[in-house]
């Protein structure tokens, strides 16, 4: 890792090789005694003792390689000069890292490296941040005695280029200038360049791609002098290869060979701030590196406990939206949505909004307005928004996008285990033997965790994939699922029950665990229910399409294969029986005793950076922060005391109910923070009708999103780079978000909410988000031990964090379930109302792709669109042929709800009868198609099953045209009068 330029604490050093666990071994290095675990390399032991052995090919996030020969040392009693990176420590070993012999070797090695390297350091983009440069200094290289000859760096021919020659800078030209060894730069990737002339062939990039990311997109081609790094096969560049642009290779490169384009353009950074990524629920820690207030690059933070120094293309590179020209920085208002926007100052906008909202309450009642909190905003901001509705509006009309994603997780795990969250930390996967993955596609949606999962799979763990699509984890380089159960969309419950049926009827359950940890009577009832032959794989096969024999084998593997962990995503929850499937998953984990230790557990992969946090913070209409029901008098008392107002004891409206009530005319005003319900929520036409019927829609966002087309007030939002706060990731980890730069719009989102509340007469006076966290800790038992001081000290904590768990809780239910006894609940399969038939014979399911994120408000405004610039409909070749559809053709996708057009992508990843698309682009409006069916317990919409028909198309649908016209009309802005 390039950690030489920015002064950091000792802890950030690259230790050279990975840490080991083992019995202590004591040795001396340069006379200093050091004790390290058995298996540690001499290089790492030296680093522990504070001695940095020169190195080029070693890095502590990958296994030792031993190729650069710079780290040679002398060991007493051993012959020769072994490489310290590949030599493990031994008891009593005496190592000398500096002797005349090793110094001479190192100098000689460096001289050879430099003999084939362009010495244009002063104009090189890695100047000051180059390990080759550092090592030349460290070994005291003062001369380069080799005559010029064959080389890789001089485009003009052999030996004509003097060091520092101005022509060195023209190396990005592709013309043949006479040197057959010279390869021009590969600039195909939008975020980084590959300059082979600066490559020292240390293989760090190749190993990072393999060991850290697990994509295997890179190789060393050729041998000897011809050896070069190659992305993909002959003739490929980075974009044509399998590269997923995670940035691990760029981070690993010790020279400027792989370099961020932002560094080339802006220079090396001078300061850095540790913060948390605002994309998915993995919650990676990043070092934001800056010059002044200009963000130069984002580098995954080595000590981030969620990502352990790794990143994906979104967090690492896709931050350009923060400065995009589309960003709105001035508040805007309008009387009616068919008028153009008027730019106004903050005072005017807030007064306008406050008066309208209060006016609506006067005319239509206290409960006629509400809020939608954002899972993209911080815990503190979310807490304030729900406080706004509860303490200022005086009702419980608050809901959040978790409604449309993981609300069934909250319900299902709450009912069975007693907590509405995943049971493990991400590290836990390192001890897992068998993974069941249901309805999740981590390599696209949670890429950094997927890399860790793949690493574990390559080390021998097994995986069972339950998904209608052949996702990457079914089979990709060096990963192959033991079983892929390609179920028909909508039959999750039947499949999960069939797995449980096999485990119970074949006696594979962990009876001791169940007797000790669960309610035995409830289990007995459940066992009787699940043993019924109607749940057998043979009986459900017709329904689910999953071959019975395969399912039986999978169940046996999970029950008997050691530590079993279940990971799942929205393919489980976004169904009419989403909650039932979550309960079924909890049942499976309890049946097999896979709860309460490392390597096991039930792990919902949460979609958004802070969807766990937004749920924790009381965003739901029936729950105050910490999942405590509003009917609970004791809980309301706590808030009455702190907030000084009476809390309504009636649950408020959920998002779908708000929209229904709006259409009916009883819900009139909405404050929507950082969420684009028009694009993300199901049945777009209904959402549009609901919004259009409201009299005051306040959108608080970075961009004029689709929802803003129906808004009367637009309050500019701030990005995650512009505020302090915390995000809570999928493993319940509370990570600090730190202000990297001042808000471009003038206020962080929590300040805007406070201003709005105060305009409505609240009298709040928070001056820093830490005070909001203190209030959360004061009022919420599971957060009682959390404060910014604690987070500063520990880096991050996982809730519950309180007196009973002062260090936080990496693993839940260790000594017993939170609710006491684990509860088995019967899971009867009820087919969804949404069925394919003659008119709509195909089933549509939706999902995400790696380079884009959700409604794409951010990623569409970055170069990530080079990978995915439009939504495509994936269709099996058989279904396509039947309809005469060719790859890339425009097609019409129609359901009972509506129709849209997009292009087809013929793919054998699909099963026949199932089609798939993403929902990243507003032009497509995939949610025009989805229906308003929803989960029975939580109203989570059934995105994952819609009966559709696919046919030829010759242009946008009427809806698309009408919508686009309305959107264009609605986005007009009149600048503020001077």
């Amino acid at each position: 890792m390039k950690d030489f330029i920015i002064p950091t604490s000792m802890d950030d050093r690259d230790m050279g090789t990975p840490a080991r666990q083992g019995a202590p071994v004591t040795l001396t290095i340069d006379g200093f005694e050091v004790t390290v675990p058995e298996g540690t390399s001499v290089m790492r032991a030296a680093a522990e003792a504070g001695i940095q052995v020169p190195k080029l090919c070693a890095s502590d996030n990958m296994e030792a390689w031993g190729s650069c020969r710079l780290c040679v040392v002398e060991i007493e009693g051993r012959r020769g000069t072994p490489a310290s990176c590949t030599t493990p420590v031994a008891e009593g070993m005496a190592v000398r890292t500096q002797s005349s012999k090793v110094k001479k070797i190192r100098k000689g090695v460096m001289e050879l490296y430099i003999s084939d390297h362009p010495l244009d350091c002063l104009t090189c983009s890695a100047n000051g941040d180059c390990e080759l440069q550092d090592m030349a200094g460290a070994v005291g290289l003062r001369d380069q005695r080799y005559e010029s000859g064959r080389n890789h760096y001089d485009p003009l021919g052999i030996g004509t280029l003097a060091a520092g020659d101005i022509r060195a800078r023209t190396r990005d030209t592709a013309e043949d200038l006479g040197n057959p060894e010279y390869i021009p730069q590969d600039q195909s990737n939008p975020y980084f360049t590959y300059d082979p002339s600066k490559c020292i062939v240390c293989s760090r990039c190749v190993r990072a791609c393999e060991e850290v990311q697990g994509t295997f997109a890179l190789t060393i081609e050729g041998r000897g002098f011809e050896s070069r790094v190659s992305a993909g096969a002959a003739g490929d560049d980075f974009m044509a290869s399998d590269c997923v642009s995670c940035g691990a290779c760029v981070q690993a490169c010790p020279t400027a060979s792989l370099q961020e384009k932002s560094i080339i353009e802006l220079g090396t950074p001078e300061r850095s701030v540790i913060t948390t990524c605002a994309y998915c629920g993995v919650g990676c820690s990043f070092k934001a590196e800056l010059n002044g207030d200009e963000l130069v690059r984002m580098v995954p933070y080595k000590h981030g406990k969620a990502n352990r120094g790794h990143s994906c293309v979104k967090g690492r590179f896709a931050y350009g939206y923060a400065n995009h020209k589309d960003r709105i920085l001035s508040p805007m208002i309008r009387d009616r949505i068919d008028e153009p926007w008027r730019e106004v100052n903050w005072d005017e906008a807030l007064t306008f909004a406050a008066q309208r909202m209060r006016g609506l309450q006067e005319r239509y009642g206290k409960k006629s307005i509400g809020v939608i909190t954002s899972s993209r905003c911080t815990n503190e901001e979310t807490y304030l928004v729900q406080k706004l509705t509860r303490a200022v509006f005086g009702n419980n009309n608050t809901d959040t996008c978790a409604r449309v994603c993981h609300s069934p997780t909250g319900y299902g795990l709450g009912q069975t285990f007693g907590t509405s969250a995943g049971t493990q930390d991400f590290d836990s996967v390192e001890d897992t033997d068998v993974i069941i993955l249901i309805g999740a596609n981590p390599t696209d949606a949670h890429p950094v965790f997927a890399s860790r999962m793949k690493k574990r799979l390559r080390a021998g763990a097994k995986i069972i994939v339950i998904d209608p699509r052949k996702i990457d984890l079914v089979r990709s380089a060096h990963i192959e699922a033991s079983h892929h159960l390609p179920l028909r969309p909508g039959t999750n419950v039947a499949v999960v029950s069939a797995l449980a049926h096999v485990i119970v009827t074949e006696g594979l359950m962990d009876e001791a665990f169940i007797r000790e940890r669960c309610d035995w009577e409830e289990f007995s009832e459940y066992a009787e229910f699940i043993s019924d032959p109607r749940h057998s794989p043979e009986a459900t096969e017709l329904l689910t399409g999953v071959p019975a024999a395969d399912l039986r084998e999978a169940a046996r593997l999970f029950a008997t294969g050691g530590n079993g962990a279940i990971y799942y995503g929205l393919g489980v929850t976004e169904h009419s029986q989403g909650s039932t499937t979550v309960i079924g998953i909890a049942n499976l984990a309890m049946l097999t005793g896979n709860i309460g230790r490392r390597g096991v557990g039930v792990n919902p992969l949460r979609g958004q950076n802070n969807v766990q946090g937004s749920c924790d913070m009381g965003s739901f209409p029936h729950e105050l922060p910490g999942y405590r029901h509003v009917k609970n008098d004791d809980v309301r008392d706590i808030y009455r005391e702190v907030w000084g107002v009476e809390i309504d004891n009636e649950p408020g409206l959920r998002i779908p109910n708000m929209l229904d009530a709006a259409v009916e005319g009883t819900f009139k005003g909405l404050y929507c923070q950082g969420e684009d319900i028009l694009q993300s929520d199901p049945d777009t036409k209904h959402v549009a009708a609901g919004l259009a019927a409201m009299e005051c829609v306040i959108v608080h966002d970075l961009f004029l999103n689709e929802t803003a087309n129906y808004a009367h007030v637009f309050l500019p939002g701030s990005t995650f780079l512009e505020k302090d706060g915390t995000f809570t990731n999928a493993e319940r980890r509370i990570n600090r978000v730190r202000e990297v730069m001042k808000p471009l719009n003038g206020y962080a989102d929590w300040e805007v909410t406070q201003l709005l509340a105060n305009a409505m007469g609240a009298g709040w006076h928070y001056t820093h988000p830490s005070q909001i966290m203190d209030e959360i800790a004061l009022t919420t038992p599971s957060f009682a031990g959390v404060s910014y001081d604690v987070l500063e000290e520990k880096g991050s904590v996982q809730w519950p964090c309180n007196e009973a768990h002062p260090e936080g809780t990496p693993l839940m239910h260790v000594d017993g379930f939170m609710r006491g006894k684990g509860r088995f609940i019967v899971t009867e399969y009820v087919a969804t109302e949404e069925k394919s038939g003659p008119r709509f014979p195909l089933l549509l399911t939706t999902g995400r792709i790696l380079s884009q994120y959700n409604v794409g408000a951010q990623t569409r405004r970055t170069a990530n669109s080079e990978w995915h610039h439009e939504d495509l409909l994936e269709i099996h070749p058989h279904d396509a042929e039947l309809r005469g559809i060719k790859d890339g053709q425009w097609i019409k996708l129609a359901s009972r709800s509506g129709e849209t057009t997009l292009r087809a992508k013929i793919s054998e990843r699909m099963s026949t009868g199932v089609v798939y698309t993403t929902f990243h682009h507003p032009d497509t409006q995939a949610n025009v198609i989805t229906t308003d069916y929803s989960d029975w317990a939580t109203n989570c919409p059934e995105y994952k099953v819609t009966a559709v028909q696919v046919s030829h198309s010759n242009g946008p649908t009427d809806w698309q045209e009408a919508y686009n016209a309305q959107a264009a009309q609605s986005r007009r802005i009149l600048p503020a009068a001077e």
Partner: protein
Amino acid sequence: MQPTPPIPTDDEIDAILMPHKGREGPLLPMLHGLQAEYGHIPAPAISRIAHIMNMTRAEVHGVVSFYHDFREKPAGRHVVKICCAEACQSVGGDVMVEETLAKLGLDWHATTPNGALTVEPVYCLGLCACGPAAMVDGKVVGRLDAPRLERILTEAGA
């Protein structure tokens, strides 16, 4: 000019690859099989091997490009591999070979325009006792001198 070889179909490639699939370390046998059939490793085969072996194209490319023996394009009808290792050099092989190639206008690794001949260096054929040595279409020859090498090369079509 050489005729462009027909691009083999996936089925034809698979027929060569599949018999090796269950073997230990099947990649090299697969590549040898392809080279024996086509005289080179056809580009589509890289993807097929990657698919069958559950590797990436980059990894297969890394192996193919490591071994000079595996070629990405077909060679000439005759391949003459001339030993350039130390023992043959010590008996004057290096000078003799360079002079002969220069005389005939041949380049290392290159194929003659008529498609008849490819000349390649090889590093030790194990014939050190009777160097300078070469291998002509798989058959070894020893005790080369300039006239003999020239005859071999011209007979092959140089």
